């Protein structure tokens, strides 16, 4: 999900609509599985597709909109989707949906299937983002982030790139929504709140918004380390996130993992490889 926020932010769009996408695709998939007995694979695929369609339609309007317009659209969608879901009895309304079946029929198979899908998705998406970042499109995105007018004058089509990134991000978010709910085997509106927006933002800004590795570092650390804290300190987790976010913005605006850091690591590793090969 942090990558889903990272991608549009490459063109300076804080695309919070991904949280709404999670909810829409997740609930849709759960409904299909529970009511129409769709196989999970089909429901997951549909979740991705639905996310992508919604992302594409919205992106046609806001692909090149100013950042604050994108933010407002995101917030608006979150509000609207929550209101629709809580008034729709077919998806459990305010009670939520629970008792989703195990994938594969047994808890153990369900767990391993989810782990396999999740890690597979991380590798696949990570690969795609890595290729994107090292491509012409990635450089174009960086140009737009730094100076949209200059990027336009160099021939970069901001709207097309914005549409591409927003659509991909929403597609990813849709699939994540399905997976999120099937991990818990339930869906509740409290899973998709503005709280999640805050956490995702913290992950990409603290980890580093300019490279995909920032998310890889920040997500497990920010989520996992508080689990080791004593409860009295862990209860202040959100305050710690907020303080960390502010400190990083003030002291290290690009986050901990910057492109320079990644470049240095890549250079270091390639030198080591060359040395090993020559030996």
């Amino acid at each position, binding site marked *: 999900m942090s990558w889903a926020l990272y991608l549009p932010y490459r063109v300076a769009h804080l695309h919070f609509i991904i949280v709404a996408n999670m909810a829409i695709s997740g609930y849709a998939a759960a409904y299909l599985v529970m009511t129409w007995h769709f196989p999970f694979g089909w429901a997951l695929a549909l979740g991705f597709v639905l996310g992508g369609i919604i992302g594409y339609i919205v992106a046609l309007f806001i692909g090149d909109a100013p*950042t*604050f317009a994108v933010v*407002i659209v995101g917030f*608006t969608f979150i*509000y609207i989707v929550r209101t629709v879901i809580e008034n729709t009895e077919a998806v459990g309304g305010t009670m939520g949906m629970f008792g989703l079946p195990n994938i594969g029929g047994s808890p153990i198979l369900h767990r391993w299937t989810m782990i396999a899908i999740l890690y597979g998705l991380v590798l696949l998406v990570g690969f795609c983002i890595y290729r994107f970042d090292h491509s012409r499109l990635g450089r174009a995105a960086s140009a737009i982030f730094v100076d949209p007018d200059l990027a336009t004058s160099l021939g970069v089509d901001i709207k097309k790139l914005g549409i591409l990134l927003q659509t991909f991000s929403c597609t990813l978010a849709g699939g994540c929504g399905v997976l999120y709910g099937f991990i818990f085997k339930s869906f509740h509106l409290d899973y998709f709140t503005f709280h999640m927006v805050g956490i995702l933002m913290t992950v990409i800004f603290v980890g580093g918004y300019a490279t995909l590795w920032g998310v890889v570092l920040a997500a497990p650390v920010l989520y996992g380390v508080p689990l080791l804290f004593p409860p009295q300190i862990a209860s202040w987790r959100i305050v710690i*996130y*907020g303080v960390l976010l502010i400190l990083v*913005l003030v002291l290290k605006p690009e986050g901990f993992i910057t492109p320079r850091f990644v470049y240095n690591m890549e250079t270091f590793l390639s030198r080591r490889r060359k040395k090993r090969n020559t030996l």
Partner: protein
Amino acid sequence: MEVFIAQVINGLSLGSIYVLLVTGFNLLLLVAMIIHFAYPQVVVFSMYITWVVLRLTGNSLLLGALAAVASSIFFNMVSAPLFQKVMKKRGEVDINSTMVLSMGIGMIITDVLSHGFNKGFPIAFPDELSGKTAILRIGLISILPGQVSSLIVGIIAVSGFFLLLYKTRAGRAFRAIAEDPNGARLVGIPLFRTGLESYALSGLLGGIIALLLAALLGSASPDLGEQVAHKVLAVSIIAGLGNLAGGLVVGLLLGILEAIVQGYLSGSWSNAIAFVIMLVVILAKPKGLFGIKL
């Protein structure tokens, strides 16, 4: 007809909350080029400080009011340098950085209020602050003192700050240092002192807003700031960033619209309908209905 008038009055009351908060939001934008998305949370924080002081002083309204203003000014003074640091270029509104920073501040405030004050439970202000008896009551139409004061102060605040910022020398100085600090220095405007005055001014307004909200609502909770923050932001953007008069009009209209929807349609859909309208306006006119005034 009676119901309609009653709902419009209710709408004006709700709208006055938005107007007050949007005015403070726009003021920070005009004097410091800061988009403070967590401005409502800061106001709620001041409300909590007021509550603490009221409890400690046996409901002394004067000390409570002073505490509201002082805490708001203090918070502004402390957070303003952070905003200045993260903004890439002075004189230009850096939305990404200031928005993310203010969201971080909002997260901290909401969580601190959830943990550290009244065990996270809502707080109640004394009845003397809000007044229990209606000034006017005809059938379903009812007007409380808190509603009147917040609406009147909202209008006065907008008018007053408009005059201050656009018609006085001091106001022009505030806007000058926000838009072009180097140019302002060249013409002899003392940056540091003027900057402090501008933050103090927005802090003063924040304190007044906190008091008026305490009078109007009679209570506060840790998530009150979040509940109104998105709408305040949307009102500001629909009206046009920095547009004081636009904020007044749109704030009141939104309040009336919400009241009408809650009164005649369904309460749980009132947010969705309001946001749909905002969405349409943003997509059709990104600079707002009344234009950006930066």
